[in-house]
């Protein structure tokens, strides 16, 4: 299956990435080739085969519900690009509207 430039644009939007026209064109071609490669799987009969997401058998690991000290607040701020008065600072959400997925 080839993938169209329109689809690639949609996936880019979902991925929160933007591409130039030239990149979009290259990506459409490359993703198309990769999708052709993975479509090899169509020839495998998977009727009744279970879906495997992980190799471990213990999917839910429980612990005692006791409180433990958390991470120091100042430390958590160490890598934040912009902060003010103990808050993370970001630009306004509403300006130009949010292009949600």
């Amino acid at each position, binding site marked *: 299956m080839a*993938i169209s430039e329109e*689809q*690639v644009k*949609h*996936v*880019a939007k*979902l*991925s*929160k*990435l*933007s*591409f130039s026209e030239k990149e979009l064109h290259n*990506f459409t071609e*490359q*993703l198309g*080739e*990769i*999708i052709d*490669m*993975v*479509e*090899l*799987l*169509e020839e*495998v009969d*998977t009727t009744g*085969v*279970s*879906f*495997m*997401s*992980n*190799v*471990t058998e*213990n999917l839910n*690991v429980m*612990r005692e519900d006791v409180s433990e000290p958390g*991470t*120091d607040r100042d*430390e*958590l701020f*160490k*890598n*934040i*690009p*912009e902060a003010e008065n103990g808050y*993370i600072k*970001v*630009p*306004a*959400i*509403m*300006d*130009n*509207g*949010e*292009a*949600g997925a």
Partner: protein
Amino acid sequence: MTKLYDLDLVTLHEKLTTKEISATELTKATFDRIKETEANIDAFLTLNEEKAMQKAAELDQAGITSDQPLAGIPIGIKDNIVTKDLRTTAASKILANFEPIYDATVMNKVYQAGLIPVGKLNMDEFAMGGSTENSYFKTTKNAWDQTKVPGGSSGGSAAAVAAGQIPVSLGSDTGGSIRQPAGFNGIVGMKPTYGRVSRFGLIAFASSLDQIGTLTRNVKDNALALNAISGYDKKDGTSANLAVPDFTAGLTGAIKGMRIGVPKEFMGEGIQKEVREAVEKAVITFKELGAIVEEISLPHSKYGVAVYYIIASSEASSNLQRFDGIRYGYRSENVKNLEDVYVNSRTEGFGMEVKRRIMLGTFSLSAGYYDAYFKKAGQVRSLIKQDFDRAFEKYDLIIGPTSPTVAYGLGENINDPITMYMSDILTIPVNLAGVPGMSIPCGFAAGLPVGLQIIGKHFDEATMYKAAYAFEQATDFHQQKPTILGGIAE
């Protein structure tokens, strides 16, 4: 002075306990060696000199005893393993200035063992790639030929060990990222069973496949290093609550009667002639050692690459959502609103291969395609695992080449993602099934090392080490050295 950089862990330990050398001298010699060779290899992204020297002095003060086999020994760490207060970038622009506020569980184990982390090693950005050319920062070179790739994604971890910059390193392996660079550099690389080593603090790429492992210049060193980093961790829900055996215990050289399968799918079309011949010779060596070696079939292994690129990319697209320019990492200056922070930080911060995988993963998980791609891949993954389960009912180990070819030229495949992806065809099925796999040197093709892959049963790394050690004792491939480590020219 003896060339400390050429010594194995057992010898270094002996010199440290008898006080022939101090940890301070060894650490100093290690940084000298790195500085002397780094222009040729370019393996390190960050050096940890001040703290390493301090750690060495503390160890010298306390004294190193014989029950601390790794104390005072320098180690390099792949740069996707978080290290408290030591820059950790995953070789990405998006984390170029990131200083973690905690240590990965493996780092705590490294410190407990008395190992001295000397620096962080180059890799493909977020471990996505097979040549280390996807690093934002630099291009690491193969230790044997500086015009060739070191493999990847743990290319820095492998080249640094092979070039004698450090005797041991940690890497991570999602689809072959320890074994393939180990093979390309002629060293020993182990990807343990999924769950053997805690992933807490490993920057996630594909969480159901990622595993941390060890790279060294010989088998015993590797077993010693894996002893130190293995074990249950309550901070990683997928780590296995199982006792860790002493992986050096079975290193006797005796493997008579061991049953080994060679998948015919690993020896067919697409495998370089010299690689196949080296593995065929390895089969003869194993037979001479008394093992029973027979041809087997892993019929679904040929689908591994397709399954992998759907599953790994899907998991990556989800894992990499956290890089949004808000709490850490690169934030674009070019913003008008919050949406711009997300989109522009990611667009400017991620490299092309990472974007390619995020796009493929998002596509595979998106409405209308989930069943055809992600679900189908998960089902074929079951079949790949069943192939291994069936083979291991009859055999103790599976062997074959690590990679279809030896190391290729820098820049040769960089614009051809599919060729690059196919070079992982022999290592990927191992991650999909969660079994352990390792690479050991088994020959040369035009002066470049060939890797022999040894695959074991779940949590049976001990048998792999046993066989690898017997092979190593019977051959001299591990004693051959690249020029940079005093080989050939000598």
